[in-house]
């Protein structure tokens, strides 16, 4: 009897876990039926291209959410990294140093907000919110509001080049996700990330340095955000002081849509991939079926909100 109950509850849990996958399939079928141009290889390439930057950023966010923290500074960190890379290039810093410096700056700022959260106890939403202002301010300060067109050649290649017909951007995104997945799944650090998120107190009791884990995931999030920025300017063809500011909600939203718990400990890169695809298909599909362009954001918002409700209900179920 008890055995049976636990099996049905396991099935129910499994169904809940797979809900994002069903959502994705439903969206694909829906748009496939209602749009002639949706089901083409070219369009799938478009979708991947559209979510590639989000994927790079989302990899780091996945780490952060798994420890039950949040990073609200990622989009501004991407902007800043892009600006720094362009600024250093304009200043004739030899390549590829502008990119290295850009990534280091982003990582360092991530470490600052991570340490503030881990060692001083400032809630991460607050420390990263403040950090987003710093990053955004630095971008403005460096550019004086102008648009920078001197980009590192590597950024241009990765942002808009192709190899064997595949966009470098998509390859970078796939590699970032892959590395993230390997770290989370097959390293001790990855396990510490999950356990810290699942129950920080218990992790501490088992000798896990949870503060260091939290500080490090914030560094990782800042690094992947910086990477998105460095590649992103190549795709845009320029670095502006507000280039990626709009990406914040999409990046966090994609991770949550995939089913990674906001309360930590549950989820991962496969979930994030599904979430990215849901967001990509949705955006792309809405264009294809020619909905009122002004309703697009509204519909995306409603779906994201529904995903949030689901995320919370899911977590609540498991508590009881």
């Amino acid at each position, binding site marked *: 009897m008890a055995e049976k109950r*636990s099996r049905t509850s396991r099935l129910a849990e499994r169904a809940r876990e797979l809900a994002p996958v069903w959502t994705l399939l439903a969206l694909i079928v829906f748009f496939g039926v209602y749009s002639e141009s949706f089901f083409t290889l070219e369009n799938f390439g478009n979708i991947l291209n559209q979510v590639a930057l989000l994927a790079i950023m989302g990899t780091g966010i996945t780490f952060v959410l798994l420890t039950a923290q949040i990073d609200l500074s990622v989009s501004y960190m991407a902007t800043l990294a892009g600006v720094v890379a362009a600024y250093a290039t304009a200043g004739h810093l030899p390549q590829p140093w502008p990119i290295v410096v850009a990534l280091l700056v982003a990582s360092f700022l991530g470490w600052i907000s991570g340490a503030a959260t881990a060692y001083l106890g400032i809630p991460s939403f607050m420390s990263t919110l403040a950090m987003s202002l710093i990053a955004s301010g630095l971008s403005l300060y460096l550019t004086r509001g102008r648009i920078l067109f001197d980009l590192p050649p590597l950024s241009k290649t990765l942002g808009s080049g192709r190899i064997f017909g595949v966009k470098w951007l998509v390859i970078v995104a796939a590699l970032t996700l892959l590395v993230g997945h390997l770290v989370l799944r097959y390293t*001790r650090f990855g*396990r*510490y990330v*999950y*356990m810290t998120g*699942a*129950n920080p*107190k*218990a*992790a*501490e*009791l*088992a*000798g*896990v*340095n949870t503060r260091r884990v939290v500080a490090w995931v914030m560094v990782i999030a800042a690094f992947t955000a910086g990477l998105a920025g460095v590649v992103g300017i190549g795709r845009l063809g320029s670095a502006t002081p507000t280039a990626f500011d709009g990406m914040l909600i999409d990046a966090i939203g994609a991770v949550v849509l995939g089913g990674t718990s906001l309360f930590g*400990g*549950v989820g991962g890169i496969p979930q994030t991939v599904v979430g990215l695809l849901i967001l990509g298909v949705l955006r792309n599909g809405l264009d294809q079926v020619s909905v009122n362009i002004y309703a697009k954001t509204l519909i995306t918002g409603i779906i994201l909100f529904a995903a949030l409700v689901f995320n919370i209900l899911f977590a609540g179920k*498991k508590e009881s």
Partner: protein
Amino acid sequence: MEPLLRLTQVKKRFGGIEALKGIDFEVFAGEVHALVGENGAGKSTMMKILAGVIPDYEGEMAYRGRPLRLKNPKEALDLGIAMIHQELSVMPELSVAENIFLGRQPTRGRVVDWRRMFAEARRILEALGYPHVEVERPLGDYPLGVHQLAEIARAVTSGAELIIMDEPTSALSPMETERLLELVRRLASQGKAIVYISHFLEEVTAVADRITVLRDGRKVATLRAGETDKSELVRLMLGKEARFFERAELVARAREGRPVLELSALTRPRAFEGIDLALYPGEIVGLYGLIGSGHFELAETVFGLARPAAGQIRVAGKPLRGGPRQAIREGIAYVPPSRRTGLFLEKPVYQNVSLPWLDRLFGPARELAAAREVTQEVGLRPPDPARNVGAFSGGNQQKVAIARWLIEPPKVFLASEPTRGMDVGAKDEVLSILRRMADAGTAVLLVSSEPETILAAADRILVMAKGRIVAEYTSGEVTKEMLVHAAAGELRKSA
């Protein structure tokens, strides 16, 4: 001289359990006869037979030399046998005098004769040594000691010759206790016979003329109070156990070596102060205290979860200053008092077990194998290390919390409330795991607020109260009551 009351070979069984296995007992007029024994020794069954609460038993009872079979408490009362229960049957709203004469108020015609009642009550209380109690005032105005007094006075005025008192001092302050003991002596000197039941052996040896010790439903001995002492009483109450002597020998040998954990003057404000403690390999030391006495905080601090304000922690001579990670590396293991804080309920058993050891044990296959081994050792049911911890019963969750530390046997095992909320069988299993660890050389600090747990497993017992160690006992010379008394006594004194 003939005893006022005599029991001969009294037996009583409840279903399959023999609560009394043939008790002989006598009490004389003018005597205080104390009855001691551990919980379940048969004290209350015997008492209930004396007071007529239990009418069906084997054996003989004789009162004033004549055989007697009580059918109910009322009959006992009519014959002059009164019982003062632990829960008093007084009415705090009524006056002291009314409580004394409850149901038997003196009357003039059909109305209560208040004047006479107050005068009588005053006279009785004076005779009992309490001339200052105002009998007109509501009983509720007075402390518990006076409530008890009223109940005793009621028994006396109703003509009781034999008064049975069940734990009369358990709720009294030390001062009230002293006055009550005086009262008991006074009643005896007035020719009453008193059967006095108490857990507090100091009181018993102070107030009684004779003491009868019960164990497992048998009378072990009846001793003159002046010719015995507390430790003999405890030994008689507990009996001897072979297991205890074996371990005692082992522990004695261990103590000749060096301590594995030493605390000196360890202090954490608002938790504990000036703790000195040495733990030797192979011994199980019980750290008992009421909740809030600082014993859980002490274990927590030794594990590095909080920093002491002063003092030192040494493991095998080496000072310990870091957090849990260093503590684990130095061979300290810790189980927190609450399962929720210590376990990942939504993660599989093997991940819970392997987490402290990932630097040498990583990869699902290896972790599963190691977890299977240690969970077998603790008897996890069902024995499935891939299942989420949250899917196990509470007792089995606790086993997971302990199993983690069997991967690499620790030098020191700090187990806070390891049997909390477990059924008897699971408790025994957990305690025998601790014993096996101790046999293998681990020094176990068993931290608990359950005296039964401590008594069942500890070789040596320390009692903490208000952040200090207030008493130390060797197992086998201490009862639950003494532990509770030591832990609470300190509170009383400082309150």
